[in-house]
């Protein structure tokens, strides 16, 4: 067992994020300003909301690629339901409910159908994307009631409401994972399914709950995003899920299940955000940004695989 290696694996991402922060603060004048930092937080709110609950799915040994589809479908359903009398609260409520339903579907398919989570949610993604086109008729749905932006952009103590919602999600996910029976069961199921079952853990129920929470978060995030941009449109864009999984993995949660933490995902989200922000402020080509992001993810997953092989 290599102590330095274990330490690097455990806290490497924290040092990397801090180092990046310092580097940007020193080299890039526009970085360390209240506006820029507030913007980063606001922009990451949506990713963060989904990522912390996706973390729970990953720790439970699952995988959910349908979060993008749910994120897109949820506001479309909500906007369709309130043709004329648009309200921000109904948008959030209905959007979240749609997320819960999609999550339940995923959970049931994975737990009861015993289908590989990646393939199952890839299939449900297509279904949900399809529903999004059906619901919206393929056109852009616009929010005419401009007041609805307030649900995402109201400033409380200088920070946007979207950021506050993300903070609440982070805290809730932390408590769920670290301090409740459900959280323990998540670690147990992801660590060793059969051991968990024989210890009396209701394995299927845990899996269904994990997917349901992730679906909920995607529905919430999608609605929040629609409120902020005042539009919603059907598409086949898997972008969100890629960003989310990248952040979770870079933070150090294992894709093999059984280990990880919410704080890791928070650090992962901000690490990737700082990277992008730094590139943007320095006017670096977005294509180069992609390549660097890819390398960072490979390094993170490689570190995980390497530390696993060391342990045997």
């Amino acid at each position: 067992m290599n102590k330095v290696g274990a330490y690097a694996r455990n806290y490497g991402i924290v040092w990397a994020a801090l180092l990046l922060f310092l580097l940007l603060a020193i080299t890039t004048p526009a970085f360390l300003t209240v506006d820029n930092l507030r913007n980063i937080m606001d922009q990451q709110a949506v990713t963060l909301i989904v990522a912390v609950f996706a973390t729970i799915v990953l720790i439970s040994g699952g995988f959910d690629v349908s979060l993008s589809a749910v994120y897109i479908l949820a506001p479309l359903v909500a906007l369709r339901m309130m043709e004329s009398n648009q309200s921000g609260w109904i948008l959030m409520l209905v959007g979240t409910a749609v997320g819960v339903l999609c999550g339940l579907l995923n959970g049931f398919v994975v737990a009861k159908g015993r289908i590989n989570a990646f393939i199952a949610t890839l299939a449900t993604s297509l279904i949900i994307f399809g529903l999004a086109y059906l619901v919206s008729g393929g056109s852009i749905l616009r929010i005419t009631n401009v007041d609805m932006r307030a649900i995402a952009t109201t400033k409380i103590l200088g920070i946007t409401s979207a950021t506050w919602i993300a903070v609440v999600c982070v805290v809730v996910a932390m408590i769920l994972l670290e301090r409740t029976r459900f959280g323990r069961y998540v670690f147990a199921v992801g660590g060793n399914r059969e051991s968990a079952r024989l210890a009396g853990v209701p394995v299927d129920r845990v899996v269904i709950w994990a997917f349901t929470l992730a679906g909920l978060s995607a529905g919430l995030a999608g609605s929040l995003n629609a409120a902020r941009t005042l539009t919603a449109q059907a598409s086949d864009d898997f972008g969100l899920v890629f960003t989310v999984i990248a952040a979770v993995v870079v933070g150090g949660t294992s894709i093999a299940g059984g280990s990880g933490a919410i704080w890791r995902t928070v650090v992962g989200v901000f690490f990737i955000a700082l990277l992008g922000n730094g590139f943007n402020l320095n006017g670096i080509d977005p294509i180069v940004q992609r390549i660097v992001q890819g390398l960072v993810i490979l390094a993170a997953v490689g570190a995980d695989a390497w530390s696993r092989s060391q342990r045997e």
Partner: protein
Amino acid sequence: MSGPHLSCRGLSKRYGATQALAEVDLDVERGSIHALVGENGAGKSTLGKIIAGVVQPDSGSMELSGRPVHFGSPRQALEAGVTIIAQELSLVPERSVLENVFLGIESSRGPWVLRQALRRRFTELTDSVGIYVDPTAIVGRLGVSDQQKVEILRALARKAELIVMDEPTARLSKSETHALAATMTALAGRGTTFVFVSHFLDEVRGLADTITIMRDSRVVRTAPSADETHDSLIVAMTGRPLDMTFPFKIPPAPDAPVVLDVSGLTSAGRFADVSFSVRKGEIVALAGLVGAGRSDVAHAIYGASSVDSGTMRINDAEYRPSSPRSGLRAGVALIPESRKDQGLILDRPVSDNVTLPYLRDVERFGLISVRAEDEVAEDRSARAGVKTSSVEANVRTLSGGNQQKVLFARTLMRQPVLLVADEPTRGVDVGAKRAIYDLIVDLAAQGMAVLVVSSELEEVLGLAHRVVVMHEGRVVASLDGFVATEESIMQAAFGLSGNGESSA
């Protein structure tokens, strides 16, 4: 007579803060079967891995047939004719025996594998060494002992002259063990040298020519197998006299009430018409050959698998568990056969593993109280004799014996009425075994009903007040544990004695 086949001098190896091997000298004669024994952590596996190039020593030297060698990798060792067969076999389960044996050394022309030539080589190989396995069989469908034959063939096909075997019999039944022993003896007669690492002392004495005993990373002594006895090995391994392997048997009170009553329990294809009972304070052993259905019965009682017909009663109330949860609720606890695959969450702390089924007990206002959890986990771990730096340490870092004790600590969370322990001492060292026996006897003395599934006859005889023997899914005998003998149990286990001799 030439010198030894393998000669090691001053081998040392350190893993972080742990000295795994210290100044070890070892001489292995050509064509001998040389056993390495010792408790877990004594360094025997590390020594085996160094010999086969899997691990590199920090210092010391090795000579092979008098020539100095340094193995930087298993591949280099193999080129010198040395290989290792690990505890977990490394075959490709989906492919045939033939393909596995010659994997990587196929006869080929360009990219094409020459199947005919491979067949011929296979026949030559099996004829020359006297091991026969169907070359077309799919490896994954073979029994463990046949898979080991394939591993040995694979080693021999690569011209290995010295084979290190790490715990080769840990997963074998008695008869399979005999078959493997015969194979090894025959090969040794033809000049192959075996270094094998094992926990099973009786087997070691029967099979090995020479035994090296290790303790605390050092060699205690190397002596001809004939000079050692079971007791002399144990004393040397543990470094302390062990006057008794088993605690004193305390029979249950004659009027002790029946806790578990199983009647006509049947699960198609696994077991049929199983009936027996366990009384308060009684230790009943479920004996029989591997595959006789004992673990299946244990799982059914716990609720981990379903039954087709039959009834169970606990404390005279009807008991129909539909899941482990319902078993737990009725006061049944299970310690499963494989602690790694069925029992523990290895990458979680000791405390989490202890409290997992009973988290409600450490909740305050709906949230887990870490302090309450650590307190109860520390208490139960101490009672079960778990040695760990802290209950926050991951279970993976503990020795096998301590991992097993974590499962006992878990059952102590609440006092179950019935404890089902499936192979409770598998793969733990001698010292930990005794501690586990003491625990089981102690729990029974406190009034728990205990059902022990065990493949070790010694254990069955040493612990059980009553022995229920299964053969091919049926109960064939119920013997008094105070008068049963190895012979009476084995006869029943092989299906030789028709009916039960005596019921206690």
